[in-house]
């Protein structure tokens, strides 16, 4: 590598960004005309430099700051869904699958709020608890289970018959009557498999503390007790 070549090299970044003085730029231009190696490097750095235009100027100041983190129980919630699906199969096939509602907009475009009262007080709750909603619009079904975990409670919800894509927000209601968020899911339905997918969520509250389960999916309210 000649000294000339080396000096040129270290100017290639500034050349690529158009930051050189006219004399310096000419020197680089002359060199890369005869040096394919530097030519390739210059072109490649120019392309890299042009990508910087994509950076939103408003973000420049925050590039050294850490990115936002998801909520503390997020990992647990996602990991819960990445389990052996065999464990969920029996429940999925327990009832015949209903076909999703036609696209009338009757259900999915409105918010759905579902309140499930879990027979407060009586009986033991050491084991998991199943629930089924009644009094739903035709074609819609919701059931699932609550499973005690080392910390809190796992919530599995099986929805059928809503419009695919409907956003459902799940809350638990405790003795304080306050709604505690337990996560969100979108109702998913596979047309190929004629199958809906269960949503797996969790809450930090113990099963014994949960009085009811609330699912909101818009501005319309469906309600059921068990």
């Amino acid at each position: 590598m000649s000294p000339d070549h080396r000096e040129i090299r270290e100017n290639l970044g500034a050349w690529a960004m158009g930051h050189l003085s006219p004399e310096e730029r000419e020197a680089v231009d002359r060199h890369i005309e005869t040096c394919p190696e530097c030519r390739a490097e210059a072109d490649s750095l120019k392309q890299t430099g042009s990508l910087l235009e994509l950076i939103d100027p408003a973000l420049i100041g925050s590039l050294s700051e850490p990115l936002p983190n998801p909520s503390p129980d997020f990992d647990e919630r996602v990991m819960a869904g990445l389990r052996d699906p065999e464990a969920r199969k029996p429940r999925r096939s327990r009832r015949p699958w209903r076909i999703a509602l036609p696209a009338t907009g009757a259900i999915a475009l409105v918010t759905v709020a579902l309140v499930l009262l879990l027979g407060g007080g009586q009986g033991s709750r050491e084991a998991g608890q199943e629930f089924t909603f009644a009094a739903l619009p035709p074609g819609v079904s919701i059931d699932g289970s609550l499973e005690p975990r080392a910390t809190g409670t796992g919530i599995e919800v099986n929805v059928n018959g809503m419009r695919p894509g409907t956003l459902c927000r799940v809350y638990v209601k405790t003795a304080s009557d306050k709604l505690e968020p337990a996560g969100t899911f979108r109702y998913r339905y596979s047309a190929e498999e004629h199958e809906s997918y269960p949503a797996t969520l969790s809450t930090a509250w113990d099963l014994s503390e949960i009085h009811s389960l609330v699912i909101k999916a818009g501005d319309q309210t469906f309600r059921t007790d068990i």
Partner: protein
Amino acid sequence: MPGEQVREAYRAHSGELFGFACRSLGDRDRAEEAVQECFLKAWRARDKFDPEIGSERTWLYAILRNVIADMGRTDSRRPSGIPLDDSGDSLPSVEQPFERAMLAWQVEEALRRIGERHRQIVVETCLRGRPYAEVAAALGVPEGTIKSRVYYGLRAMRDAMEELGYES
């Protein structure tokens, strides 16, 4: 892909995917929803993953891309009350901005990866457009040093972009 590999991929890439979802959706809750959906989809499709076609990371981004596009479609239709059906699945105008957003995210991620020293130089000279002499004075180094640092900073950027799966 075995199930454990999906969980492993979650540990390795979920932070970055979440960051991208935040940038694209501008909302943490919705970003969580998107990443959760992405990994559920990945889980269900894990047997279809083919390392010959692309990396695990690229595969996950492709899934997330579709999830976010679907969320955009669903949400944009909601307020107007237009029913969701299969006939309106192609919204070509959405495609380009999305690709651009994804590339912008890769560039941002690359800038985060190159380390403070390189980043500082690239930010000050290339993004903020400060004169080399001014940056040199501020850092107490000769102007020529800034030039060579711009060179090494851009090289580091290029390497980081390659690591992130960018093909020029």
